[in-house]
């Protein structure tokens, strides 16, 4: 069988609740430092859940802040622009006039395109106040006083983030935006791998960005009962695999990778974090709300990703779990790990970095892909914080207490979405790559 084109990860950028760049984020995750706290950037005091994992003290890098596109960027677009800029700088390579058509872009974009301020403003013009029932009244949009803002309208288009990234960095090849709920970021990185292997492009900027930390997004997860309500102990609220876990903590941020042809990266002397070696995808097709308790669905995605990497389960030393800290997800995911690794499951170190940075929704899989690459580079399995009392249903080798030095030959990252889309990615240590 023909060797698949090898793809190198040569740049990483992150904006997360534990750091506004990749080195800061990685140092915090290694140290088990929590980015969770009381929600600060809007008044959440009346909400049933008042904690979140916010990006803090964020500023756009100068290179982007001065660009005329910045005014079109929403909160999550700004995270994306900053993380992408960092990844390109880190890789030491970026699109040029003569190769911009050979650069591609693949993003996992969040589902909420409209800023809360816009929603609230529109509601004031378009809510029926006769009897104050708040029914939508379209004619309010025609009110001469309605402050229609074409820039805000453009910003709210589904692919606005993709458009801004392509324009900012001059990427003219393949470009896609995907959304499979919490699996989006992983699927975006997996799509990038496939597009590169098809030979459509030679370089790819791949990642995800999201912010649902606004009154509507927070409400929507409160309604589902998916969030941990431990308002008084936010730093302990996300406790994947723990017997007392009670839901996830909503986060926000962005993560980007620069992907290159392996041989080309070697030739230019690029630093290579890891090989992006395999992608697997499945749909649980079980229920919209629930994960299959026996791990059916995630099992197929993990197996495919390992096979796609030309690897075997015994090659995987570390798993960055989806590990949301909901009862159902963690149980289902651990069942899947037992299904794939069998008796060998206790050999494999497992952690959920959501314990420290919360759930970044559409950005989660992309940030966690970067975490896997850094874990491989440094030989460290980052801690799965707050797992004080391991749930017997989650009896896998959780990295508890503190991060663990570990030579990682290959790592697996899972992203399991609402609605049943499962994405798994496999990363290989450069030393393990056979010529």
């Amino acid at each position, binding site marked *: 069988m023909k060797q698949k084109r090898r793809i190198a990860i040569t740049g990483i950028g992150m904006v997360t609740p534990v750091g506004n760049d990749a080195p800061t984020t990685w140092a915090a995750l290694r140290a088990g430092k929590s980015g969770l706290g009381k929600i600060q950037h809007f008044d959440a005091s009346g909400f049933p859940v008042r904690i979140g994992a916010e990006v803090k003290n964020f500023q756009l890098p100068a290179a982007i802040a001065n660009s005329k596109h910045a005014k079109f960027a929403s909160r999550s677009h700004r995270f994306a622009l900053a993380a992408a800029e960092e990844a390109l700088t880190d890789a030491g390579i970026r699109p040029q006039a003569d190769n911009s058509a050979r650069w591609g872009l693949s993003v996992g974009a969040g589902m909420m395109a409209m800023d809360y301020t816009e929603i*609230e403003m529109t509601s004031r013009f*378009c809510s029926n106040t006769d009897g104050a029932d708040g029914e939508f009244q379209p004619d309010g949009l025609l009110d001469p006083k309605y402050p229609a803002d074409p820039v805000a309208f453009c910003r709210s288009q589904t692919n606005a983030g993709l458009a801004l990234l392509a324009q900012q960095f001059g990427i003219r090849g393949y*470009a*896609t935006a995907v959304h499979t709920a919490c699996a989006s970021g992983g699927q975006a990185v997996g799509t990038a791998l496939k597009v590169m292997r098809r030979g459509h492009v030679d370089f790819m900027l791949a990642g995800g960005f999201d912010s649902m930390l606004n009154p509507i997004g927070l409400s929507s997860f409160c309604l589902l009962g998916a969030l941990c309500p431990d308002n008084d102990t936010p730093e302990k609220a996300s406790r994947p695999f723990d017997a007392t876990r009670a839901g996830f903590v909503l986060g926000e941020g962005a993560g980007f990778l620069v992907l290159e042809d392996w041989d080309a990266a070697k030739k230019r002397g690029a630093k290579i974090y890891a090989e992006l070696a395999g992608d697997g995808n499945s749909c649980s097709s079980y229920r919209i709300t629930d994960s299959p308790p026996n791990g059916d669905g995630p099992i197929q995605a993990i197996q495919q990703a390992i096979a796609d990497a030309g690897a075997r389960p015994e090659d995987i030393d570390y798993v960055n779990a989806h590990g949301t800290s909901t009862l159902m997800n963690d149980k289902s995911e651990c069942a899947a790990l037992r299904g794939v690794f069998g008796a060998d499951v206790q050999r494999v170190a497992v952690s959920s970095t959501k314990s420290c940075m919360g759930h970044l929704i559409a950005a989660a899989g992309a940030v966690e892909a970067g975490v896997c690459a850094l874990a491989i580079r440094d030989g460290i399995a980052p801690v799965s914080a707050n797992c004080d009392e391991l749930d017997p249903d989650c009896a896998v080798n959780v990295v508890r207490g503190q991060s663990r030095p570990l030579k990682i030959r290959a790592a697996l990252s899972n992203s399991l979405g609402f*609605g049943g889309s499962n994405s798994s990615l496999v990363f290989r240590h450069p030393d393990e790559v056979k010529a």
Partner: protein
Amino acid sequence: MSSKNSIAITGSGAVCGAGLGIDAIWQNILAGKSAVGPIEQWDARRWPVKISAEVRNVENRQLVEDRKLHKMISRTDMLGLCAAHQAVQQSGLLAHRDTLDDAGKTRFNDRTGIFAGSGGGNYRSNYDFYPALTASAGSLPKFGGEFSQSVNPMWLLKNLPNNVLCHVGIRYNFKGTNACVTNQCVGGVMALAEAAAALRNDEADRASVTAHDTPFEPETVAGYHRLGLLSSEALRPFDRDRSGTVFGEGAASVMLEKNSAATGRNAAILGEFLGSGCVTEATGILDLRPDGDGVSRAIELALADAGLAAADVGMIVAHGNGTRASDASEAAGIARVFGKNIPPVTGFKWAVGHLIAASGALDTVLALRALREKVVPGIAMLNAVDPACAALPVSNQSQTPRSDVALILCRGFGGMNVALLVRA
């Protein structure tokens, strides 16, 4: 005769303002009938734009049989599931699966991919929060205690952009590789291209691909109108007097299969997917290049992907959205690839409206029909071709394809351009 890389199309389906099912839509197009008419979904008497191509006179039960589902999904999902069901039924794959033993069924399900092109987030879903926002009168702490009184607890799941993917999976127990592309206008055609790539790459043996969108809602109409993109009169692609696009709504779906799998079960093959090309012009959210750079590069990539030359193309279904800038630059891009040898060109948006995320997928199922019938339908709304588009062999009368290959072009915000090649 199938090319090495081609993928069989064994099912197709569609629903839009021009009809429920491809037959009905096709007959209306051939008859020169446009589905564009007065807006009915809200009282638009005071609106500067009063027209759209709505799906009218179709009951929810005709779209999705299972009534329980009606409350759990949104209108765009209903339309998507309706088209998907048509394609699945036509493919005969469920009956084929019934003939397999248990291990065969499991493998069948695990090897059946699901791809969706979705309009993504919409404005309509926010309206569910208006009663709570109104009741709390700008006080966030009050809103925080209010929303659970009036918003459906399943609000988030009802509005997932990937709902069609999930529900196609659950309904038919398909469990294979999947993607939901939310890339505005090109989402549907990119879902199709990714599904075909997954089959070529042996990630699946077959895949359901569905594109769906309901872009037509007050805030998009108001927003597009302010940007000068909507016509208040009619959608006239490539016409000298064109004045913008007109929204439609609907969905289109195909079932793709590896050629070997389709022939192995003696399936009726409607056509073949031959290749795709996808590029962005990197011009930002709204702008596009007047020279049609993205159009020509996407076409060239698709031809290379299919192993075809421009001269092999028998007809072109253009994006033809009726805006000044898009139609002129599209004509320039086509001319750059085909020179003086452009095959018959048509477009369908004058009849079905602009379905945004579903537009290119609907064009694709209609292109397959056109190839089979050997008719390139005329653009009934075309009165006089714009000099900027004069190179294009467009007509308000039917033309004849010059081969069994069709090129479908789809363009979107973000400078996106996608080209697909199919044969029938």
